[in-house]
């Protein structure tokens, strides 16, 4: 059917539409005219030797739009315009290639004849593009064109792409012709096999089965692959037994890939026999076949898992290890009994594998087995521990808590705490609260750390009790971290300090001093008030705690308090610490403007009594991004102890065009000084690159 006849058909469609909506027809006619006009305008540029990209892209866009549902007349018109151009002698090869690429996406029956003509083109790219365009053309006429060309082409090299195109199309009408080619030597025969595998009809399977008997090497591999594809297709269509027969015919093949594919197909086609088949394969001791069989275990149903597990006892020990692993991964309780039996094996590898498999198939009833194995050594203990950490069955968390409570040995108790933590067993939190009061430091610390991950708001008070009982500084710090973790999980940031504030309000004076640094980690306005009260307190412990709070505060809101302390104190050590704290706090998140930061840094610089802190102030000035900061830092350029930091900060500040450009003259001067002073070559290079003209 030519595109002209199709256009006639389309015109018929238009006539019908005239009766139902003249506006639609008018709009479509307008679209067609627009397409023609665009094509006429773009064609010279599309065919040009340079600068064709924009024209090509514009035309492509129009083609893709024309191929949208409901735009059939436009699609036809676009294809008509391109196929007409294809037939014209003066159309350059590259233009033809471009049009064929469009036809590959939007061409249908109307395009077949013109595209097929290009199968005889002398230009190899045009020929290749025509083949691809026909391969992706949904009209059956494209298949006819490819088949008829195939019959006329004697050279193997020219036949292979045509065969591949027929395979891409997957049309049953190609089977007979491709079957004839199957007997040809490579590459034609192999290409035909691949194409038949894609078409995958029963007829194709029959032809491939016959051909396989007489083939070997790479050809056999391709025919086998095609045959198994046919089996897969039959399986997908619900024809399980024919598919199984294809698979069965391959299992005895001398070719390993054929055997593997055959086995896989049989397993898929006969799911009710899969467990028995897997056992047979494993018992036969064929390692490569075993890889396929074991891989299939994850797809077995519960009944087949039970059958498979029953067969475990009959397998040799190394094979048991493999199957136990697969059963564990399958995570079906139907295997539980057999796996439990295997945990009693005298073979260490089997025993360890069974304990590992209990992580997948075990439940609360198998917990004692794992607990007992935990006390053993080597692989068995490791496997048991991992299973205790990973098994998902209901009731296991509660049973483990009971086990922990009943365990007297501190080392084992700690082990159970770790397991509960790794299980994310939040229901263990109340029990762990008791453990944070344990006389055993190891148990206590492990429990507090676990609570940091498992506890929620109701447990915070109990954790604080544990914290207040500890005297060891490291343990106190760990406890503070754990409590902060729990508080930070409270969704509303404003509420995070509240559980601690409640405890604080009723705590003894000495406990308040211990709690203040903990509160400080969470910040907030109420805590800030407490810190300010503490700084004025006559109680030396409280005052020290408030000062500690300054150094660990989580945001910049504390900066003014720290600066005030630096300015007020006459203690040089505290002054130094305060300048350090100021620099730290100004690096944290907050609402300070750059000018405010700089003002505080200038005041902080006046309080710094050592060069280390002065350098720290200059370093922090990089965050106060104003030209005034550059001027402030530049004052230190001539101080040999501060030069290096001053140069680095200036270059970092002037890295920003928004700071540099409005002040270029001043920036150039400062950068000149940096370039002259700095001994850091890369810094000097950066400075030069920021000067005007660079």
């Amino acid at each position, binding site marked *: 059917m030519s595109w002209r006849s199709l256009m006639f058909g389309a015109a018929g469609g238009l006539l019908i539409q005239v009766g139902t909506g003249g506006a639609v027809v008018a709009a479509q006619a307008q679209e067609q005219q627009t397409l023609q006009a665009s094509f006429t305008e773009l064609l010279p540029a599309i065919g040009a030797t340079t600068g064709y990209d924009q024209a090509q892209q514009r035309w492509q866009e129009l083609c893709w739009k024309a191929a949208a549902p409901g735009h059939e007349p436009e699609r036809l018109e676009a294809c008509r315009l391109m196929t007409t151009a294809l037939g014209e002698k003066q159309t350059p090869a590259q233009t033809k290639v471009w049009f064929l690429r469009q036809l590959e996406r*939007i061409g249908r029956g109307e395009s077949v004849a013109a595209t097929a003509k290009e199968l005889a083109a002398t230009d190899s790219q045009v020929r290749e593009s025509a083949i691809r365009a026909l391969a992706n053309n949904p009209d059956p006429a494209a298949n006819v064109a490819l088949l008829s060309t195939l019959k006329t082409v004697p050279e193997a090299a020219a036949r292979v792409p045509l065969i591949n195109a027929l395979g*891409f199309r997957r049309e049953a009408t190609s089977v007979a012709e491709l079957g004839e080619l199957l007997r040809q030597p490579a590459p034609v025969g192999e290409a035909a096999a691949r194409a038949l595998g894609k078409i995958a009809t029963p007829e194709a399977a029959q032809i491939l089965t016959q051909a396989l008997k007489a083939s070997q090497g790479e050809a056999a591999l391709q025919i086998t692959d095609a045959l198994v594809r046919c089996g897969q297709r039959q399986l997908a269509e619900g024809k399980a037994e024919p598919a199984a027969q294809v698979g069965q015919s391959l299992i005895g093949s001398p070719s390993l890939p054929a055997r*593997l594919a055959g086995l896989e197909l049989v397993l898929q086609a006969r799911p009710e026999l899969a467990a028995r088949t897997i056992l047979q394969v494993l018992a036969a001791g064929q390692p490569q076949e075993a*890889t*396929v069989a074991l891989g299939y275990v994850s797809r077995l149903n519960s009944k087949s898992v039970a059958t498979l597990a029953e067969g475990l006892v009959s397998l040799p020990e190394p094979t048991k290890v493999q199957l136990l692993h697969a059963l564990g991964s399958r995570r079906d309780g139907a295997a539980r009994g057999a796996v439990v039996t295997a945990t009693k094996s005298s073979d260490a590898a089997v025993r360890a594998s069974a304990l590992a498999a209990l992580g997948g198939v075990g439940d609360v009833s198998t917990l004692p087995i794992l607990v007992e194995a935990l006390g053993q050594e080597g692989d068995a203990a490791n496997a048991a521990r991992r299973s205790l950490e990973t098994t998902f069955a209901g009731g296991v968390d509660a049973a483990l808590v009971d086990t922990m409570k009943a365990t007297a040995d501190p080392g084992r108790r700690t082990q159970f705490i770790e397991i509960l933590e790794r299980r994310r067993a939040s229901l263990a939190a109340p029990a762990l609260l008791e453990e944070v009061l344990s006389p055993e430091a190891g148990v206590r610390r492990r429990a507090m750390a676990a609570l940091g991950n498992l506890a929620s708001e109701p447990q915070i008070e109990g954790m604080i009790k544990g914290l207040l009982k500890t005297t060891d500084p490291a343990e106190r710090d760990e406890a503070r971290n754990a409590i902060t973790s729990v508080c930070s999980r409270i969704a509303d940031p404003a509420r995070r300090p509240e559980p601690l504030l409640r405890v604080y309000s009723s705590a003894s004076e000495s406990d308040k001093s211990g709690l203040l640094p903990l509160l400080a980690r969470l910040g907030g306005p109420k805590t800030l008030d407490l810190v300010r009260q503490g700084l004025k307190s006559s109680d030396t412990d409280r005052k020290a705690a408030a000062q500690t709070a300054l150094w660990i505060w989580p945001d910049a809101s504390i900066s003014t308090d720290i600066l005030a302390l630096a300015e007020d104190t006459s203690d040089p050590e505290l002054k130094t610490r305060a300048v350090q704290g100021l620099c730290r706090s100004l690096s944290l998140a907050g609402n300070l403007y750059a000018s405010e930061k700089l003002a505080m840094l200038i005041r902080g610089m006046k309080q710094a009594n050592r060069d280390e802190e002065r350098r720290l102030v200059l370093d922090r000035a990089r965050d106060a991004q104003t030209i005034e900061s550059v001027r402030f830092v530049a004052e230190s350029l001539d101080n040999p102890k501060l030069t290096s930091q001053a140069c680095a900060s200036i270059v970092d500040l002037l890295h920003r065009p928004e700071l540099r450009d409005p002040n270029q003259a001043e920036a150039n001067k400062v950068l000149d000084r940096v370039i002259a002073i700095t001994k850091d070559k890369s810094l000097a290079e950066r400075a030069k690159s920021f000067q005007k003209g660079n």
Partner: protein
Amino acid sequence: MQFSRSSRRQFLQTAGTAMAFPYVLTSSALGGNRPAASERITMATIGCGGQGTGDMQGFLGFPQVQMVATCDPVTEHRERARTIVNQHYKNEDCKSYNDFRDVLARPDIDAVLIGTPDHWHAIITIEACKHGKDVYCEKPECLTIKEGRAMADAVSRYGRVFSGGSQRVLGDYGDIPRLVRGGALGEIQEIFVDCWGPSADCYLEEQPVPAGVDWEMWLGPAPYRPFHESLIKGGFRPYRDYSGGGMTDWGAHRYGAAMFAAGLHHTGPVEIIPPDGNEHKLLTYVFANGTKMYHGGTNDITYKGTKGSLPGEHPTSIDRVDMEGYKGEGGIFGDFLHCVRTRELPFRNIEVAHRATTVCHLGNIAYWLNRPLKWDPVAEQILGDPEANRWLDRPKRDPWTL
């Protein structure tokens, strides 16, 4: 003969010991105690550009791996990779190849690492499966949706282990998948995913093919075009004949990560709507459960649920969630190697990889055609738009075919 090779190597008999390590270790921590040569997993690297070589070096860190071959149509690439391998093992045993078919023909190779440009992934994977090799293939795992399905079929046909190479799904997002999958955000209503946009046609100028470059082999199944050096130096991604662009590059990571976290990684969207400047400001995927996933609107991935957002305010949850993770030790490489031994399904198995890349490709098709698409994730067909369906696959250049 091949049976005896496998028997000698006792291919699966170390499965039990592989399970014995209770904690995740980094590959560098696995440096000592190499298994006997007969028990190692022999591998070849096919595609030795930057990513392929980087992955190869990752695998070299595993004592159970013996890298025995490198392959690339660019001589410099394959020889550089071969030198790295031989220096690592302090011998000259690793061989280099121009044609991957010569690698696959070696019966002593158990698994291949595919680090080629995207347009080669499907053909090499399928051929590797036919030859009985397991496959680790870089993301995006395929160039078209039908390639992905064909790869999955081949993996199933030969019972092979396949892992896609998206280490970021678990590696980059810490606790986020657990929180999202576990319901901390409530029902997931919207997901915003950032990555660059789709690929386009290539208009790079023609350059002479330098010595040491097999340009025909580099192009392989892609339509012919003249040589340009940026294409062999990792610059192929913006071009449709070789890649899906940013949508399939980082998209394969991030859409995959988002779908995994939201539990959508075994299905696909039912509707894909390109931006229209009105109701749909962003490319929008609609899933059957009502979840909408957008391209853009974030710097990475943002989840919005009925109870909160991530990043953003949300109820926290410490509960354990029963979801997939890496097996074995050493991240995604360790997961693959563990599964080669045990025949388990790797974390980024072919079905999961195919679903993730399908989303990327559907987004590209919607962008390219600039019209909404309806997708049947079971039949894997675009509904009611025959011409859009023709984008699901592309005929290959002579003599290549799937």
